[in-house]
């Protein structure tokens, strides 16, 4: 199950890149514009609320759109297996980060002594990147030859899981 038409490669790369960039823009609050619905005004980039609440959702979508279009456009110029390898590497690194950081926090909680370094995100990132390099190196070649269309549902579901996790404060108040 692979996709090699130009349209399929572009749209898969676009979907995957958009989902990832959207999560980053949402969590780091990086809108291209800020809309103030009460006064109907728009500010460029992030702006604090003015005369009522500010809306950043439109800005996050626009920031992600620009980033995803750039990534998808670049994907059209590189061999298909590079796109597949890049997405594979990114997904393994993301899952690895999740596992390493969770294990580190669990260990920190249970350890009888203070292990402050386990709370460092950069340590989990480094471990995840290392794991992704090793797994990508030993992954079967047939996994890395052609672009897998399944990325376009798998990565957005992962993105939604992360977004849902960050919304948990609404459900625990």
């Amino acid at each position, binding site marked *: *199950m*692979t*996709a*090699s*038409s130009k*349209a*399929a490669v*572009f*749209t*898969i790369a*676009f*979907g995957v890149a*958009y*989902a990832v960039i*959207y999560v980053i823009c*949402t969590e780091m609050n990086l809108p291209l514009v800020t*809309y103030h*619905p*009460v006064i109907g005004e728009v500010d460029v980039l992030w702006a604090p609320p003015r005369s*009522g*609440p500010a*809306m950043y*959702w*439109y800005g996050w*979508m626009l920031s*992600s759109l620009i980033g*995803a279009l750039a990534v998808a456009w670049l994907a059209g110029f590189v061999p298909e297996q590079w796109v597949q390898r890049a997405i594979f590497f990114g997904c393994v690194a993301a899952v690895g980060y999740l596992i390493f950081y969770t294990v580190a926090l669990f260990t920190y909680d249970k350890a009888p002594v203070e292990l402050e370094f386990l709370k460092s995100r950069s340590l989990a990132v480094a471990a995840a990147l290392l794991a992704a390099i090793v797994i990508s190196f030993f992954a079967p070649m047939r996994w890395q030859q052609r672009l897998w*269309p*399944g990325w*376009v*549902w798998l990565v*957005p*579901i992962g*993105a*939604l899981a992360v*977004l*849902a996790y960050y*919304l948990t*404060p*609404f*459900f625990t*108040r």
Partner: protein
Amino acid sequence: MTFWTTLLIIHGLLAVALLGAITHQALAVWMPVRSKAGNFVTRFRAVPSTSYVTAIIVLYLATFVMGAWIYTQYRFTSRLALEQLRFFKTVGVFEMKEHVATIGLIVLPAYWAFWRQPLSEDCAEGRKSVTLLLAVFVWANFLIGHVVNNARGFGS
């Protein structure tokens, strides 16, 4: 307020049409009918799934644009009321709805590419999966929208 209520009703009607179309297509592609159509459920599954693609894309875009427009009003009327009433779970699921709608929107180009004629065998699994994903998103957003409207709909 009449203006926004009218928009909300149109948004709801578009969502119903989209829900019907995507459900038809998802069932037809995941549970294709092998024999002659018989009862209601079998006939529901027996539709030509390719004929729904353009309608689903247009309906999704139209529903999304209407929802994004109404959202501006929701943000400083209904949401503030929901927060004052401490309906945080309702606010939370609506936040999720905006993310689900966005992720569904960005899956649409791939959905279009996978369903492009002539249908590619290479994309058969991707086609099925993306159609199911869109169906789940549309159902989830429809139900969330319904719940939020019940909690604090326009005019309440």
